[in-house]
Each structure stands twice: as C-alpha cells, then as structure tokens.
C-alpha cells in the first residue's frame, strides 16, 4: 500500500525568507502524481503544485517549487519569499492509477512577521 510521510508537524519561517517542507512516500508503482495542497482555516484544500513521476524536471509555480527525487521517493516543497498569506496546513499527497489521493498528516506552517 502507498504511504505518504511528513515528518515535520510544524514549521516557522520569517516573512520574506525561504522554507522547505519535507515529504517522503512509498510505492511500488512507476507512474503516479505527487501534489502539495494548502489548507487554510477555511478548510478548503487548494492545489499548490503537482509533479508527474515520469517528468524529471522539477515543477515550479511562481514562489513554489519542488525537489523531486524519484529514487529516494522524496518530494519536498520550497516556498520562496514567504508571505503572511502562506500560513496554513500543507499536505503532501500521492495519486496513481486507482485514482485515490493519499495524503500525509500535514505540516503546519507559521509565518513570522
């Protein structure tokens, strides 16, 4: 069975600084997608960035980028120039052919002004 592990329950970063959130996963499948979702207090999951396993190039969306290491089964999220609005729970997630999304336990990110 696939699993997603986020080892950092909470993190803090100074506004305008860079922070990296860690995620590892376990799977025996070769084709899958990985995601980072943001969940603010409103509870709505918002897709931040996604990466297809077959693409070697790391995905980037404005201030958000990933470091995808397929062999190590690692998928970290880097947030550059952190802003107060980035404060939220961040979930790493995995999805494959069975279409279920498997989530990690999340990392709560605090932005310090």
């Amino acid at each position, binding site marked *: 069975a696939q699993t997603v592990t986020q080892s950092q329950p909470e993190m803090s970063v100074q506004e305008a600084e860079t922070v990296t959130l860690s995620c590892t996963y376990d799977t025996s499948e070769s084709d*899958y*997608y990985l995601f980072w979702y943001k969940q603010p207090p409103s509870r709505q999951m918002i897709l931040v960035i996604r990466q297809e396993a077959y693409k070697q190039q790391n995905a980037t969306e404005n201030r958000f980028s990933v470091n995808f290491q397929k062999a190590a089964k690692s998928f970290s999220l880097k947030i550059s120039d952190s802003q107060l609005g980035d404060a939220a729970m961040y*979930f790493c997630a995995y999805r494959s052919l069975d279409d279920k999304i498997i989530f990690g336990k999340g990392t709560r990110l605090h932005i310090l002004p």
Partner: protein
Amino acid sequence: GAGVSQTPSNKVTEKGKYVELRCDPISGHTALYWYRQSLGQGPEFLIYFQGTGAADDSGLPNDRFFAVRPEGSVSTLKIQRTERGDSAVYLCASSLQSGMNTEAFFGQGTRLTVV
C-alpha cells in the same frame, strides 16, 4: 456554482442519530470523492464515484456509512447510528473526469460533531 459546495457547513448530532451530508460538485464533473479528516490528520479516502456508480468504496469504515449519487451530480454521504468517533471534517472533491492527472477540486467540508 463556481466551486464544490458542501452542506451543512457544521453539524452537531447526538450519538445514535442518523445524519446526511450533501455535496454539490462542479457542474459537468463526472468524478466525485469523499474524504474524512480527523483532528490533526490528513484526509482519508472514503469513496469515489464515476458518474452514478461507486467505483471504489474501500475506504468506508463500516456498514454504518453509505453514499449515493443517483443522478451523477449531487452526492449524499449517510451515516447511521453515529458514534463519537465519527466526529471529523468530511471533505468532498470533484474532477472533470477520473484519472490521476486531472485536478481534484475540494469543497470546504462539513464539520460533524457527535455528542
């Protein structure tokens, strides 16, 4: 509506009662998912519909939980004989179609509290 709508936003019920949680997906989305998020945890998969049929209900914890999507749009998650352990946020998501490369859009969830 523009997004996935879930009603009610919050529901408090007494142990042993029956509850229904509703999800209105984005118009035209054929795939619909239900997740349960307990306090301090990530969402856990419950059931997924493709059209009217349940394509995968392997995440439903027991036979007290049931979900329907009779016309392929609105879905209702039904919980019988509620227990305090059922307290959680129930999230619904929809996708234009099934498939791991299609984006899933989430609603704001229903917070269920069983007292």
